């Protein structure tokens, strides 16, 4: 794996100065490598992982399992493209197994999600069925464990 991508995957806040020292590359080389990745769409965005449960923000997440009648010529892509356009759809995966698309959706209230399922998702002509599961609590996401901030409790031993 490209070391630069690996580092940015770990921590997108690394500066070009830090990356250049860690990877033994010049800052200019780092900048142009990142620019190339952005141009090619390898790097799509830089975001922060926030434990919203520790804030006063109201939100609900759900995972919806969707069965689709695949379209001739297009497979599942047409439906997936359409669903991707909804900003409330946070993640969207084509799955193996008993259902086809996993839609991870976020709303402010349960009603928002119900509205999406009944008025936007289930009425699509290729959607055969959907099954909605609400997220009760996040334990780990994107490789990061949720919980109290980790304190450095290492002792100074000499």
């Amino acid at each position, binding site marked *: 794996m490209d070391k630069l991508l690996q580092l940015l995957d770990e921590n997108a806040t690394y500066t070009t100065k830090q990356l250049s020292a860690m990877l033994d590359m010049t800052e200019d080389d780092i900048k142009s490598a990142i620019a190339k990745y952005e141009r090619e769409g390898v790097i799509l965005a830089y975001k922060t992982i926030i434990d919203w449960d520790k804030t006063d923000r109201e939100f609900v997440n759900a995972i919806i399992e969707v069965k689709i009648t695949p379209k001739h010529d297009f497979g599942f892509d047409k439906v997936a493209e359409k669903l991707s356009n909804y900003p409330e759809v946070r993640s969207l995966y084509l799955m193996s197994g008993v259902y086809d698309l996993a839609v991870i959706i976020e709303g402010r209230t349960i009603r928002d999600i119900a509205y999406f399922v009944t008025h936007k998702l289930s009425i699509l002509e290729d959607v055969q069925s959907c099954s909605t599961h609400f997220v009760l609590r996040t334990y780990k996401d994107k490789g990061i464990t949720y919980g109290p901030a980790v304190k450095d409790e290492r002792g100074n*031993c000499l």
Partner: protein
Amino acid sequence: MIDYEKVLSPVATGLKPSGIRKFFDLLDSMHDVVGLTVGQPDFVTPWHIREAAIESLQAGKTYYTSNAGIPQLREEIAKYLDRRFDLKYSGDEVLVTVGGSEAIDLAIRACVTPGDEVIIPTPCFVCYEPIVRLAGGIPVILETRYEDKFKVNPEMLKKAITQKTKMIVLAYPNNPTGAIMTKEELEDIAALVRDTNIVILSDEIYAELTFGRRHVSIATLPDMRERTIIASGFSKAYAMTGWRMGYIAAPCEIFAQILKIHQYCIMCAPTTSQFAAIEAVKNGDEDIERMKEEYDRRRRYLLKNFADMGIECFEPEGAFYAYPNIGKFGLSSEEFCQRLLNEKRCAIVPGTAFGDDGEGFARISYAYSIKHIDQALERIEAFIKTL
């Protein structure tokens, strides 16, 4: 009133109190300090290793093991030493100890008798000299030099060897300097002891943490296995400091004596930790590589920043410490570190904590995140601008 002067051993009371302890106590009492002082990994022990310990507890494995350790663990350590460092030991020549510290203690006590000289190259980890004194031995300090990249200089070693020399301590990769010794450099040392009755105590606790080249153990050189005691452990390589898991590998004649001391003083190393260690040594090679890569990045980052700040530092090739030269700022190492702490709330360890020849240097641990290192560097930079 009891007269403690009469109760306490003069050897114990004569041991120098660790000066650095006071510094650490002060540090612990202060808030908002950004420190680069800790001599242990910032990683948590990999989960599969912790899980093996938990499973052993669930299975009720709460007994003593045999004195020398669980046979499977001893076998696996022997295989590991061969796989990673080309060291040929049987499981019967491996003793599981309570951390690398016990391994060092046992090695010294098994060999050193009153009046024996033990050559200790400094700067080094703080335990060798006191343990030699407790055994009645005479520590002979061999100062290593910046211009030798803190390696043992064979000419200087030759002058230090006398009829009374019983043991030479070799602690590479080195804490605090990060120095290593190559095969060729070790060969020069081996040539001096090959036809003697001098034993090498090779403290290889940082053996896995070398950058750019693999660690070479002096025991792999011709005729050296029979006169070398290897002290090592799991703390640094697998981020297992709190488990207190170390080991000794030594030829059977030495091993037999070491085992006796261990069995009378310790009985056996903690059982739960031994089960964790089996998992680590069997399936932990990838964890070592992952953590090492991270240390290497931080090492390069630190060196680059020192260079930019005009702080001279030789390139450490092992362990997770840098040992910059702070002499040019006109303060003693202790003054430098004390003032840095008081004025900028940043803590690093004065080189003098590791020997008198540490004057002019400081130990900086990079067992911290880049973000944390950055905060500390900002404070160091601001401090040196005031000097």
